Structures are given as C-alpha cells and as structure tokens.
C-alpha cells in the first residue's frame, strides 16, 4: 500500500511484530512503521473478525489498535516506536476469562 519517499530516512531500529524481528525507523509512529513495512492487516475486528487497517492516522478511528509491550488496544498512530518494542496484532474480541494454563 505504501513505501517510503526517497528522502534519507531516520536510523533503522528493530522492533518485534508478532514475535518476529521487524525494521522500523526512529521517529516513526507504530502505524507508519507497519504501513511502510508492507503490513496491510493491523487487526481482525472484534465482531466479525474482518481484517482492518488504519483509516484516519490521527487518533480518531481506532482501527489501528494493537498490543504494545503487553498493553492491549493502544492506538498505533499515536505511539512512537522504540527499539525492542513488542507489537502484537489483535485478533477478534479478547476473552474475559483468565487464559487457562492447560
């Protein structure tokens, strides 16, 4: 969907996306980093499970919700990436019950 313009970008930093190494640039918002890295699906909706991606990139639509360093439902467009940040994409509605250890 997107690529970076040819203007020299900021320093490359490594983050984790769903546990795998992913390259971002210092100063990126999490949403820009994912979009520039070719991610088209940010989450699956909580009702039907349909794929979703950012619509507004200004904190309004809440389509870019991801789990950041263990905290769910963070707005990826409002958070700046940091080296080592752990991003997880959310799928469907979370369970209200504690995860079973089975």
């Amino acid at each position, binding site marked *: *969907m*997107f*690529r*970076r*313009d040819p*203007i*020299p*970008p900021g320093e490359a930093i490594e983050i984790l996306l769903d546990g795998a190494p992913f390259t971002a*640039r210092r*100063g*990126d*918002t999490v949403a*820009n*980093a994912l*979009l*520039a890295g070719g991610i*088209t*699906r*940010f989450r699956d*909706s*909580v*009702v*039907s499970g*349909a*794929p*979703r*991606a*950012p*619509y*507004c*990139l*200004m*904190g*309004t*639509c*809440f*389509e870019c*919700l991801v789990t950041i*360093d*263990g*905290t769910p*439902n963070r707005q990826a467009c*409002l958070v*700046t990436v940091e080296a080592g940040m752990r991003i997880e994409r959310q799928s469907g509605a979370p369970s209200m019950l504690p995860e079973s250890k089975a």
Partner: protein
Amino acid sequence: MSPQIPEAAELVIIGAGPAGMAAAIEARAAGTEVLLLDETSAAGGQIWRAVGTAPEARKTLLGKEYAAGAALVSEFAACGAQHVSGVSVWGVMPDENGRLRIGVRHNCAARLIEARAVILATGAQERPLPVPGWTLPGVMGAGAAQIALKSGGLLPEGRCVLAGVGPLLYLLADQFLRAGIIPAALVETPSPHRRTALTHLPGFLRAPTFRKGAGLMARVRRKVPVIAGAEALEVRGDSKAKALRYKRGGAWQEIEADLVLLHAGVVPSLHLSVAAGVPTRWNDVLRCFEPETDELGATAIAGLYIAGDGAGIGGAERALPSGRRAAQAALEHLGHNIDPARRDAARKDWHKADLGRAFIDRWFAPPPALLAPRGDTLACRCEEVTAGAIREAARLGAPGPNQLKTYLRCGMGPCQGRMCAASITEIMAEETGRTPAELGHLRFRTPVRPLSLGELAQLPAGENARRAVLGDAELPDTPLPLPPRAR
C-alpha cells in the same frame, strides 16, 4: 522522559495546531501562565504535522504553506508556554467554584489539572465517508494518507485512486505528483450547492486561496484523469481493496486500485466540547454539528473557549486569528485588559482569512446521499452495525440517535461514535423525514478517550471517593500499585 504535568495552571490550551499555538503566543505576550497539552509528539497539529523535524526535501515536496508552519512552531517553542506532548485529554469538567478541571492521561496514569480558563483547540477530524467496502484495508481518508506523508514520508505504492469531494483531494494529488506518483484517477462527487456557491464567487476571487487553488486544480487536471459527476462510490475487494467502483450517468464503472483514498471535507471535533456541556448547532451546508460559540469562541460555560476548526471549519489561515481572539477573550476572563488595537487586528485578520470561505464551503460540500448509506454497508465500524439495521430501527420509531445506540450498540465501540455519529443522524433524517437539527447527535460523555480502570485508579482519591469506600475508617497507608505494564 516526558516533563511532569502541573496540577494547576491559569490557562490551559488543548491542541498544538495553528489555533492552539496562536492562542498560546497571544496569552504569553500578556504574561499569563500557559499550559498546552497535545496528543501527538510534536507541535504543529495535523496541518503542520512534523514540520519541526521534516527534512527540507520533504518540506519542498509538501509545498510552501506546509513549510511556513515551521516559523510558528519555533515562535511557539520560544513563547514560554509549557508544552506537554503525548497527553491524551479525556474530559473538561466545570466545577461548582467556576473553575475547570481537565482530565488527562499521561504515562499510563489519569490526572486532573485545575484551570481558570481553557481553550479547546482540538481542530477537525476528516469526515467519515461510509461507502460500501470502506472498512477494507487499503481504504483510508485522503487526510490520513497526507498525515502518513508528512509524518513518515510514506507514499502510495501501486495504483492509487482519490475519491469524494474537497480541495484536499487536489492538494494531495499535487503533492503526490511532485513526489513522482501519478494517481490512477480522481473521482469527484458533486456538491449540491454549486449554484449558490457562485453567488459567493466575488469574495473568493479576492481571496488568496483563489489563485493558489486554481493553479493547483489546473496542474492536477493536466496529469491525473479527473472523473467528475460520480453519484455513488463503492470499494470492491475481499481482504483488501482491489478496485473503486463509481456510478455516473446511471452506469457503474470500475477502476483498479491498491489504495483508495476517500474524502468529503473535515468536520469539527466535538467530543470534548459536547462532553463539557457546550450546546451544538447544525450547519446545513457543511452537514455537520458545530459547538455554539460567540464570534470570539466563548461558550455557554464560563472560562471555556473554542478556537480554530473545532469551533467551525475555517482552515489553518482562519485558525490563527481565531486562536488569538479566543486567547484575548480568555485573558479578559482572567482579569486582563485587552489593547483595543490588538483586538481589532485579530478581528481584521479573521475576516481576511474568511474571504472565500462561503464559496469553498458550498463548492466542495458533501452530497447528502453519500453520507447516508444503505443495506449491508457498515455505519458503525467498531460494533459492525449496518446502515440497514439503523434504518430499520429508525422506522420502528426510535426517537433519536441515542435510542439507536441503546438498541444496536452503534457508537459504543472504542472510537466512541467519532466514525458513525454523523451517519446515524443522516440515516435517521432520511428515514424519518426529520431534520438533523431536530434529531441531534449521539451524546458524547466524559471520558472521551479510552481510559483503563488501572489508569483511572491512579487519580488521587478525593474526599467523596474516600468516604464512599472507607466510610469513617482511616485510609490505609499503602500506595496503589502501578499497572504492571506501565512504561
């Protein structure tokens, strides 16, 4: 490391866009203590997003008006206002002593700040354009794509189509062209007010926006196929956008697209003002609700002012004097005398920047049919409530948007109605024959940004809260634990 937020300030300004920065500079010139809170990481607002850090080459690509924002950002940085970035404001609450309490979230903790005056400069949001397929990845607002370009240097890859109505479609197409990207098409849906727009043409011809706008449109039309007069739009695709379909002269046509950028103008951000208790009025040309303010930005709530697009869409040029005027009104409330010459200058600048607005508003007004979807099209993206379900509930006799929320959960997801409130009112109006003004809009309530219970629990316990939980017992001397994942 983010700076600490003070517990009180004379004047708190919310939003670091043109209106907020101009208001801060004006209030600092009078020697008032100013605290400015903003959600993003740097001053500039969406119009001048990242202008303080953007490389020169990107500023050139984005144009002179974007680059010009850097001067105001520098002036603001030097004005002596305390600027705290990365703060989410979830409420402005008038208290019984005529002061205003501002609820914020900062570093994973809720806090309250007390202020004698508050200026809301929270600007606009892009109007959602609920066409079939608009929830697919690969569909976003044209404004969103522009923010991606300003803040991250992101450019469309593959075939890109712009669709809808508004000057931003041309501005963005022009910026793409300068970056070497040729959009596959610009599909325009006509404004229903073009004839009345022409009666306002003389003002527009005298406005600086006229020459700029005419040149811009001509440049875009030379390079990009512009399809005018589309009556309906839809996006086709399974798991992502594949094509934009448009109806013209009764027939559907299709353009392949990897990225569909929709736009139908911008509307005031209403959540904070409405939740604070400011009444709204319906603007029938721009088809949106606006908070009720006087011409300086004063609201029905003592000490609360609104500046810039948040008070009514006027663009960045008008937001600057609007910010100055709101600051002057707030300063007067704080007991300052305002120099009449300064007041006059701000008023004159406001009217100068307003030249041409009446024409632009009407020439680029959104067609109502596009704003009231039908059938399976999702009106509420969060809770996935279809336009058809809303129509059915409206026919069953729901008296207003708030009853629909109770019936269907529309507006109850994380966006808190930001993406569906307008569509719900539009659909109900069409279905019942009542006007949007009569129907009103969803009620927006504090907290207007999501706040976890853990964050809320970080608020210092007030006397009432203490008594509710402990009765007459003493508060135990153990501090509340921080949320486990607080960063």
